[in-house]
C-alpha cells in the first residue's frame, strides 16, 4: 500500500465515521461537531485529488459558514433536553433497506464500470485556471449564481424576521 492509498483510507474512514455519527447521534450539537469532521475529511480528499482551491473553499464555506449557521439554528430551536424522545421516525426499517440496496447497486456498478481508470500524471494547474474559466467560459453562470445568493439572502432575512406590526 502506497502513502497515497494510506492517506485516502484514513480520510475515507474519518469521513464515513463522522457522517455516521451525524446521522445517528442523539444530541444535535454532537451531530454538528461530527459534521465538521466529515467536512474536513472531504476537504482532505479534495487535496488528494489535486483540487486545492476547492479544499480551501470547503473549509471556509462549510466548516466556517454552514456549520456555524446550523449551530445557531440548533441553539435557537432546541428544547431544554431531547433525552428520552426518539430521534427517528417510523420509516427507519424501510429506509435502511433502500439505502443498503442503493449502496450495493452503486458499488457494483462502479466496480464493473470503472475497473482500472487511472488518473493522468499531470494534474491540471488549479487555482489560476479555475479563475480564468470562471470569468471567461462560465461568466454567465457565475453572475446568475451571484444573483441566486442575493435572492437567498433577502429571502432568509424576510423569512426569519419577526412581524413587528402584528405584536
Amino acid at each position, binding site marked *: 500500500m*502506497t502513502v497515497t492509498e494510506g492517506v*485516502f483510507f484514513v480520510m*475515507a474512514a474519518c469521513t*464515513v465515521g463522522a457522517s455516521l455519527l*451525524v*446521522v445517528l447521534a442523539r444530541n*444535535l450539537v454532537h*451531530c454538528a461537531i461530527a*459534521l465538521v469532521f*466529515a*467536512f474536513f475529511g472531504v476537504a482532505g*480528499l479534495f487535496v488528494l*485529488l*489535486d*483540487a486545492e482551491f*476547492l479544499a480551501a473553499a*470547503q473549509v471556509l*464555506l462549510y466548516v466556517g*459558514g*454552514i456549520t456555524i*449557521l*446550523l449551530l445557531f*439554528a440548533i441553539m435557537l*430551536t432546541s428544547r431544554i433536553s*431531547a433525552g428520552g424522545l426518539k*430521534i427517528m*421516525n417510523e*420509516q*427507519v426499517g424501510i*429506509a435502511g433497506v433502500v*439505502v*443498503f440496496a442503493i*449502496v450495493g447497486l*452503486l*458499488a457494483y456498478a*462502479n*466496480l464493473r*464500470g*470503472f475497473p*482500472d*481508470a*487511472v488518473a*493522468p500524471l499531470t*494534474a*491540471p494547474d*488549479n487555482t489560476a485556471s*479555475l479563475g480564468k*474559466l*470562471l470569468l471567461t467560459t462560465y461568466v454567465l*453562470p457565475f453572475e446568475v*449564481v451571484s444573483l*441566486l*445568493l442575493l*435572492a*437567498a*439572502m433577502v*429571502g432568509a*432575512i424576510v*423569512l*426569519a424576521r419577526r412581524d413587528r406590526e402584528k405584536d
Partner: protein
Amino acid sequence: MVPLSYYLILSAILFCIGMFGALTRRNAVGILMALELMFNAVNLNFVAFSRYLPQPLLQGQIFAIFVITVAAAEAAVGLAIVLGLYRNFQTINVDEINLMKW
C-alpha cells in the same frame, strides 16, 4: 494512485448515509445536516471524475463550486424556514408539523 472506483464507492456510501438521515430524522435541522452530507458526496464525485479524465479539464471543479454556492443558499433559506416553523409551532419535529396532512 488510488483507483477512481474507490472514490466513487466512498461517495456512494456518503450519499446513502445522508439519504438515510434525510429519510429518518425527525428534527428539521438534522435533515438539513444530512442534506449537506449528500451535497458533499456529489461534490466528491464531480472532483474525482474531473481529476481522472484522460485530458486535464477543470469543468468538474467548476460544477463543484456552483454546488457549494447553491448549498450555502439552501442552508441560509432552510434555516430561516426552520426558525419560522419554530416560531409558529414551537417544534421543529417534521412529523408533528402536520397542518396540511390529508
